[in-house]
């Protein structure tokens, strides 16, 4: 039988250690200070270099370039999403030949740089000019914009097919069996049981893919499409003013950050039933 004879009297909480400047704190403050100083310097410089002539000349062009970028990405991601469905199905198919073809497609487009794919299509298809003219496709492939759209669609389709496949395969087998036990048809199972769960898994990778496409789309500037990057390069080559690049960076950062935040909100909203 053990009873405490003496109780420890209540004591105040230990004192909060006094704030000291450890080397790491000094480093952190210095680095953050450097960023802030760089930011202020940048803003001051942009204000100082603000030239109303340049803004009226190149401002609208920047905005039209931005519209070009967003249109290009929007169309190619949408078309890529459509094209990715048969590729993902091919990849999951039990038919050996089909799955190998789909695998080869995905491997090629994920294993090579987008810029090399774009060059292969834009410059390379010129080698087959007579054949393409005979097919009536030359009108399409003559234009840099169409080539970029074509290359981006094929590229993003490969990535999206992998996202889709991963998401569908992440749905556990029990879900299929449960649906079969309820007597649902294959289409009903896919449409009402598998897809809603898969899409939640795929949500984040899809967002990342869109951001990657927005950043990747800058390379169309090299094949003479005047997107945001193209307009920036054109403005720089005429003015030799480095602030054109700074403005482009600001535009890109704002788009990417906005998209990332929207996507995070969307994800939180769509997965609120999964929170415990």
């Amino acid at each position: 039988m053990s009873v405490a004879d003496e109780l420890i009297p209540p004591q105040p909480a230990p004192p909060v250690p006094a704030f000291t400047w450890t080397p790491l704190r000094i480093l952190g403050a210095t680095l953050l200070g450097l960023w802030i100083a760089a930011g202020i310097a940048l803003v001051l410089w942009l204000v100082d270099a603000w030239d109303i002539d340049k803004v009226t000349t190149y401002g609208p062009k920047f905005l039209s370039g931005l519209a070009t970028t967003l249109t290009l990405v929007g169309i190619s991601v949408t078309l890529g999403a459509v094209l990715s469905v048969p590729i993902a199905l091919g990849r999951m198919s039990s038919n050996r030949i089909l799955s190998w073809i789909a695998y080869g497609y995905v491997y090629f487009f994920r294993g090579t740089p987008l810029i090399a794919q774009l060059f292969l299509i834009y410059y390379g298809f010129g080698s087959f000019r007579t054949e393409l003219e005979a097919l009536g496709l030359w009108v399409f492939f003559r234009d840099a914009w169409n080539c970029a759209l074509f290359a981006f669609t094929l590229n993003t389709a490969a990535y999206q097919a992998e996202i889709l496949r991963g998401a569908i395969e992440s749905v556990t087998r029990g879900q299929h069996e449960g649906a079969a036990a309820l007597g649902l048809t294959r289409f009903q199972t896919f449409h009402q049981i598998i897809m809603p769960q898969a899409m939640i898994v795929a949500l984040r990778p899809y967002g990342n893919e869109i951001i990657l496409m927005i950043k990747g789309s800058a390379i169309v500037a090299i094949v003479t499409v005047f997107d945001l990057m193209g307009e920036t390069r054109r403005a720089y080559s005429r003015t030799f003013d480095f602030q054109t690049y700074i403005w482009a960076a600001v535009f890109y950062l704002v788009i990417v950050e906005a998209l990332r935040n929207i996507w995070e909100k969307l994800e939180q909203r769509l997965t609120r039933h999964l929170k415990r």
Partner: protein
Amino acid sequence: MEPTASLGGQLYWLASLFDPFCGPLGLLNLLPEGSLLSCGDTGWGDEVARGFFVTITLALCTLPIGLTIGLFLSLAKQTEIRTLRAAANIYTTIFRGLPELLTIFMIYFGLQIAVREVALALGYESGFDINSFVAGTIALSLVFSAYASEVLSSAFKAIPKGQYEAGYALGLRPGKTMRLIILPQLVRIALPGLGNLWMILIKDTALISVIGLGDTLRQTGIAAKVTKEAFFFYGIACLLFLALAMASSVVFSKIETSVRRSGVNR
């Protein structure tokens, strides 16, 4: 006679013996004389092979720099010190949000302007040219480190706190705990993510060709312009990148198996 030059020459000669494309045992020597890809003055094989080596060198130079910066960034992101965390997060936000191409241009032109200003301030009149290889390495390291810091941070989160506490209980200093206990486990967890980043890095090196570095894409591009066989040469460029991706995935799966085996033994 300068010893360094002759040493460099000898090394170059030694390396050219093992050149898998145009060396004495090179693959491209099997091609018939006068084909588009043969070595020497008639074909483009040696030019393309040189570009291929530039691509590999660039990626291999970027990797250690990017990994080191990325490791320090991820360490900064998990300290309790708010200012350090904020500084690291600003870095990641910027270099993950900017298109790689824009980063490359900004580093290339920005460095040129900065060097010119510094040279003028110091009283030099003549212009300096920024080496596109150096500019490319810097730009790719910035991008790579931003992504690597995210991969490493999530790997750090997967290591339980008890591992640190055990290290301290054994009397190890924080630095030693990190080196002997945390990092070996970290490598095992972060390896798949880092493998992905390496693949992305290889593909990003192709972008450096736009600032004039003679890498695979640029060399094949020159060949395509001269010979008017654009599809053939850009196809070769794609195949070279594919070969690089395949080789890396083989190497990475080897490393992963060996690392996993050492984990089981312990």
